[in-house]
Every structure is written in structure tokens, then in C-alpha cells.
């Protein structure tokens, strides 16, 4: 799919450097790099490795839960598995992959040569990477009640007082705390970089209301990081003080409060999931227009909705605590805030629909994953509304219904959009196209597996099955549903491995992509694939939200029509 109107002036004519041969030099290059593209790729590669590991942990859990009173793994091992699976997926898959894409794309999309603070960028990566390694070292190192090796087993939200020394002796909880603390420092560093880059390094002409929506969404996400990750850091400092210095933050014997940990954790935890989903929206905002061949519908409304989601998401946290006994007034407030967030979220879905309307939709693999995202995010949002009704939540919280809901968002929406982003930007990053044929297998197998697992998972929740149980009784009627759920896991595993194979194989054998294989409109497609180290031979300047559309359609540039929030008088144009 080469571009229709060749855009030759923008192509970089520099002869690429002669390839380095010695593997030590190559390694040194990667380890010491401060180039945002390489750092982005390292984040992504690192996250993919953890995706496979955490996916394997999930597979083990599903085998254990396929039948009641199974003995595939012991209760101790199962409890470690669900803790590690959750912790890994959130902190060492979700965050790195999304910030990796952000790192790679943002400077390119705003016409800059690198991020604002390249060395901080590298530092953020390496400290996060170290955090991940520390978490997994816990399988080998550390002491504890359970013998050799002790990964944390307190659940990814590590409620107090289960995490106190008396209930979790040994070091497993400390691995959890420290690994996440380090990853949090990295996240704040990256967010700082993104904000500074976006505000201070846009190319001439790119006012804030002319930035690609992806950049807007990452800006909102990064601002949320400052306000959301810090409470977790604070809470973890308090936990460490409790465990080692004898303080009493969460020590109920001394009058401390277990509920305080919950508040602090969820003040982080809820915005965190929005931090994970906003980049997925960012990808959708770029990919759906290109494959509908239309500009995004309602750019200003999309910006406003994204900012609105960012703000409201900071106020909904205690919907994770409806069953804690906060009182009717608190419960009611959080119901209202949670329901309110559905309005800007709905606006986004409707705007995507309107973008597709009247377009000429191309069903590339990237688009197919994006379509999956649209349907699945809709459903996830609706089960979220169900859960926001506190009396419903009193039954459903802590059950497999919630597990199904949040996996619908994390896998059905976010992971699908990440796959879509891979198929869309892989050509830019590597210069090669991913195989559409393998992509079709990946898509359909994953779709089937996803729905087998997560559609049916709602049912055991509705029938009373709580979460984090290493087994269940045969007389509750949950077995058939658990078997179906477990069977879907296998499809997803195969599909993911196929995807990894596609990426490796296409690197060597894929079709050459050229600078602009999708006929797209934002600045990253104006440079070579992969871009040179310095990104652009000349810093571009832009006049509209779709600079390449203007170049390709000089008779009808976007700048004539673009909506701003002020009313435009058509006659004067």
C-alpha cells in the first residue's frame, strides 16, 4: 500500500551508516543509548518478554481452576501466581509497552529530534527494567515460610494487614514493594519527559490544538501519572516503615487502619487503569481515521473528553471499596463519580463511530484489531456501569464478574489496541511489513480465545465464585464455566506465540515498507522507515492537524476546515 502521491522532498537522502559488526559494539550501543526510538523499542521488547511470562502464569492458573479441587499446583504456588500475574501485567507489561510506544512516537509526531531529557529517558528505562528483574528474582532469592524462593503472594493490591510482618514474614512482600517503587520512579521520569517534550518541543506551527490526538492523550496520561503514582509510592514507603522500622501506619493492633491502605492504593489504582487505557485511546485516534480514510470526527470534543476522563478518574477510586462499609453517603458519592465518567467515555466511542461513518474502511489486520477494540471496549464499559451500581457491586465485587470486567478492558480493549498499534507502526520502526496472513491467524485465534475465556468468565461471578481462590467446591455448579474459560486460554497463548513469531520473521523476511505504507497523515510518516537517528533532516513546520494530508491534497488542505472550539464563520473562509 504505497502512498498515492509521492512526497519526495521529505525523504531523507543521507546514506545510512555502515553496519557495526562486533556484537559488543552493538550491545554497547543499545545499553548506552539515549535515543528515544531505541529506548522505546527496549521498553516494548522488555514488555513483550514479560507478557509471555505473565501469560504463562495465567495458563498455569487456568489449568488449576479447570476442575474443582484440582491438585495441579499447591495453594501457595497459586497465590504467588495470581500475585505475580497481576503485578507483572500492570507494571511490567502494560506500563512499559504503552510508554515505549509513547517514547518512540511522540517526538516523531511533533517534529522534534528527541525527548526533552534524553538521559532521564534512559535512566527511567533502566530503573524500571531493574524493578522487573527484582520482582522475578523473588522466585529464586529471599527467604520465607514456604521454603526455597518466595515470590510475593499477597495479591497485586497487597491489602494491609496481610502485608504486615506478622502475616507475611520473610521477604516476598518486600520484593513486591521495592520492584514497584522502582518502576514508579521510572514511570514518573518518563511522564515528566513526555510533558516537557510536548509543551516545549513542538515544531513551528504546531499549536496545542494542532497536535495529533495521540500526543494529547499522552499529555493527559502523563499529568495523571504525577498525581496517581505518588500515592502508591507514599503508601509503599509507609508499608516498608511498618515492616522494618516498627511504625504503625496500617497496624490495626495499634489503632492503625487497614482501610487507609485501601484508600491510598485505590487513589493510585483507579487512575492507573485509566493511565493504561488512555494510550489505547491514543492509538485508536490515529489508526481508525487512517483506515476509514477520514479525519477524526470532533477533534476538540475528543480533547475535552480526554481531559475530562483524566480529571474524573481521580475521583472514583472508592468504587473498589463499596463492600468495605464506608457508609451510604460515601458509597453514593462514588457511584455518582463513576457513572459520570461514562459520559466522556461514551463521547469518544460515538466520535469513533462518526469517524467510520461515511468513510471507506480498509480492513487491514491493524484495523481488525481496532474494530475488536471498539466492540469490546463498549461491552467492558457497560459491565463497568453495572458494577458502578453499588448494590450490584455488593454482590459482584471480589467475584469473577469483576475479573471478567477488568480483563475485558485490559485484554479486550487495551491489548487489542496494542496489537493494532504493532501492526500499524511496526513498518515505521523496522522498515518491514508484518505478514497479513500470519496476522489473520493471530487475530482470529486470539479473538476466539478471548471471547471463550472472558465472556464466559462473567458467569461464575454471577453464580457466586469469588476471586483469588486456588480451587473451588464441586457442589457450586461452577465447573463447566471454568472449563470453558480455561480452554480459551490455550487459543490466546497460541495466538500470542504466533504474533511473536510474526514479528521475528517479518524483521528478516517482511515486505519493505517504505516511508508511508498506510497513506497516513501525521509527521512520523514523512521520514524514512526506520527513521534516521536525528528523525528529520529539516525540522518541519505545520499548518494543520494532518500535515501530510495538506501535502497530498494541496487543493483542499485541512487548515480550511478544521474545527476549533470557537465558532467559525464559514463566509469569511
Amino acid at each position: 500500500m504505497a502512498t498515492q502521491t509521492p512526497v519526495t522532498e521529505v525523504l531523507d537522502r543521507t546514506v545510512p551508516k555502515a553496519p557495526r559488526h562486533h556484537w559488543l559494539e552493538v550491545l554497547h550501543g543499545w545499553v548506552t543509548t539515549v535515543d528515544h526510538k531505541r529506548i522505546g523499542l527496549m521498553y516494548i521488547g522488555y514488555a513483550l518478554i514479560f507478557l509471555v511470562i505473565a501469560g504463562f502464569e495465567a495458563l498455569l492458573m487456568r489449568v488449576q481452576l479447570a476442575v474443582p479441587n484440582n491438585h495441579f499446583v499447591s495453594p501457595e504456588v497459586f497465590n504467588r501466581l495470581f500475585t505475580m500475574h497481576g503485578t507483572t501485567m500492570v507494571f511490567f507489561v502494560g506500563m512499559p509497552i504503552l510508554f515505549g510506544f509513547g517514547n518512540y512516537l511522540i517526538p516523531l509526531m511533533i517534529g522534534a529530534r528527541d525527548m526533552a531529557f534524553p538521559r532521564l529517558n534512559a535512566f527511567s528505562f533502566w530503573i524500571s527494567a531493574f524493578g522487573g528483574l527484582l520482582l522475578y528474582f523473588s522466585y529464586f532469592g529471599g527467604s520465607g515460610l514456604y521454603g526455597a524462593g518466595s515470590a510475593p503472594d499477597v495479591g497485586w493490591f497487597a491489602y494491609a494487614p496481610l502485608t504486615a510482618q506478622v502475616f507475611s514474614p520473610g521477604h516476598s512482600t518486600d520484593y513486591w514493594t521495592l520492584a514497584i517503587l522502582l518502576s514508579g520512579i521510572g514511570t514518573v521520569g518518563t511522564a515528566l519527559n513526555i510533558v516537557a517534550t510536548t509543551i516545549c518541543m513542538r515544531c513551528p506551527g504546531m499549536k496545542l490544538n494542532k497536535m495529533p490526538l495521540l500526543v494529547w492523550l499522552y499529555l493527559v496520561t502523563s499529568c495523571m501519572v504525577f498525581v496517581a503514582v505518588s500515592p502508591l509510592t507514599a503508601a509503599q514507603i509507609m508499608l516498608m516503615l511498618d515492616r522494618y522500622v516498627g511504625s504503625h501506619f496500617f497496624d490495626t493492633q495499634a489503632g492503625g487502619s487497614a482501610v487507609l491502605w485501601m484508600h491510598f492504593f485505590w487513589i493510585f489504582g483507579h487512575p492507573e487503569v485509566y493511565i493504561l487505557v488512555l494510550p489505547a485511546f491514543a492509538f485508536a485516534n490515529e489508526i481508525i481515521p487512517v483506515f476509514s480514510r477520514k479525519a477524526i470526527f470532533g477533534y476538540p470534543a475528543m480533547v475535552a473528553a480526554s481531559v475530562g476522563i483524566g480529571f474524573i478518574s481521580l475521583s472514583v477510586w472508592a468504587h473498589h471499596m463499596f463492600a468495605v462499609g464506608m457508609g451510604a453517603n460515601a458509597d453514593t458519592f462514588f457511584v455518582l463519580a463513576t457513572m459520570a465518567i461514562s459520559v466522556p467515555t461514551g463521547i469518544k466511542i460515538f466520535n469513533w463511530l462518526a469517524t467510520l461513518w461515511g468513510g471507506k474502511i480498509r480492513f487491514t489486520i491493524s484495523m481488525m484489531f481496532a474494530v475488536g477494540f471498539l466492540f469490546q471496549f463498549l461491552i467492558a464499559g457497560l459491565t463497568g456501569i453495572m458494577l458502578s451500581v453499588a448494590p450490584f457491586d455488593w454482590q459482584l465485587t471480589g467475584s469473577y464478574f469483576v475479573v471478567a470486567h477488568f480483563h475485558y478492558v485490559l485484554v479486550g480493549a487495551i491489548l487489542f489496541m496494542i496489537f493494532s498499534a504493532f501492526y500499524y507502526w511496526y513498518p515505521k520502526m523496522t522498515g518491514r511489513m508484518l505478514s497479513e496472513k500470519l496476522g489473520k491467524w493471530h487475530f482470529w485465534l486470539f479473538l476466539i480465545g478471548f471471547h471463550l475465556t472472558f465472556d464466559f468468565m462473567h458467569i461464575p461471578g454471577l453464580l457466586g465464585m469469588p476471586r483469588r481462590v486456588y480451587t473451588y467446591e464441586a457442589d457450586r455448579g461452577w465447573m463447566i464455566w471454568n472449563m470453558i474459560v480455561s480452554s480459551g486460554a490455550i487459543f490466546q497463548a497460541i495466538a500470542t506465540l504466533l504474533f511473536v513469531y510474526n514479528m521475528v520473521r517479518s524483521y528478516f523476511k517482511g515486505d519493505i515498507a517504505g516511508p508511508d505504507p498506510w497513506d497516513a497523515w501525521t509527521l512520523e510518516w514523512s521520514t524514512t522507515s526506520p527513521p534516521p537517528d536525528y528523525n528529520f533532516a529539516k525540522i518541519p513546520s505545520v499548518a494543520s492537524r494532518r500535515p501530510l494530508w495538506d501535502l497530498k491534497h494541496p487543493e483542499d488542505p485541512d487548515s480550511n476546515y478544521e474545527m476549533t472550539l470557537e465558532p467559525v464563520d464559514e463566509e469569511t473562509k
Partner: protein
Amino acid sequence: MTEGAVIPNSPNEGWELPSRGVVGMACLIVAEAAIFVIFVVAYVFYIGKSVSGPMPKDVLTLPVFATICLLSSSLTVHAAVSALRHNKRNLCSLWLAATVLLGGIFIASTALEWYQLIYHDGLTIQTNLFGTTFYSLVGLHATHVVVGLIMLSLALAFSLSGAMSSKHSEKLEVLSLYWHFVDAVWVVVFLVVYVLGR
């Protein structure tokens, strides 16, 4: 289309964006403020809830002198930045030294206060909820002061060596923003711990 990659309606002149250092420091301040907010919330939540042990009104006295020193150091660091902007290097060194001195007095005063609390009043972080929240909040602040003092001392060293000039004034301004933040946090901590909580 000879300039740049796209149609330049208004090419590069007049395109000015905020400084990276200031924006970056503002972000860091927001993040650090959020951490402090959580420790303050914990402090306020646990007021009056200690099951035993010394209570705030039994052992705390208003650290007036230390507060005056710390807040004045905001003025001196502002003066240092101003001096550097006008390329008055010696004056800048003087004001930086004053800032470090005032900050140092604050830390020394805190250390004395803690010595008194631990050895004479028997209040440690383990004693009760008051001890836990007091030492963690004031200690977190003190840590930030120490980090700031280290950075200010480095700046002082650069200034004394003659390596700094007016073109570095923005960098010094960024550091001074951090120092103003530390002082603002102290105002909050002072009000919450020594006024409200007692």
C-alpha cells in the same frame, strides 16, 4: 516547498515555547506534592487516634526560629537568581551561601528537636500513631531539604569557582523553584503538625 516538510503558512519566526527546565521541575513538584499530600492525610487521619504514649501537645513546641530561617532562605535564593541574571557572580555566591546556611540551621534545629523527643520524651516512630506519622512526615520533608541543600552547595561551589555566569541563570532558577516548593511544604507541615494537630 523548499523549507521544511510541509506547507509553511507561518514559518519558524516567532515560535517560542516554554523552557524545558521549568516545565520539568513543575512536573516534579506536582509529583512530590502528591506524595506529601498522602503523608499529610495520614497525619490528619490519625490525629487523636493514638492508643497510648506522648501526645502532640505534651511534647511539641513551635519551631519558630527554624521556620523563620527556612522561609528567609527562599528570599535569599531568589536574590541569588536575581544577582546571577545581572551577572553579579560574587553577590550570587553570597546569597547562595546565605541560603545554605539558613537551610543548615533549619536541619540542625530539626535534629535537636528530634534528639529531645527521642531521648527525653520517649517518642519514636514505633511509640504510637503520633510518632509514626510525625517522624515520617517531618522526616520526608527534612530529606527533601537535605537534597536541596546538597544541590545548592553544588551551585555554590560552581559559583565560587567562577564557572557560573548569567547564561546559567535559568538553571539556577529551576533549582530555586525546587527550594521554594520545599519551603511551601514546610508551611503546610508546620500548620498541620504544630498548629492544627496540637
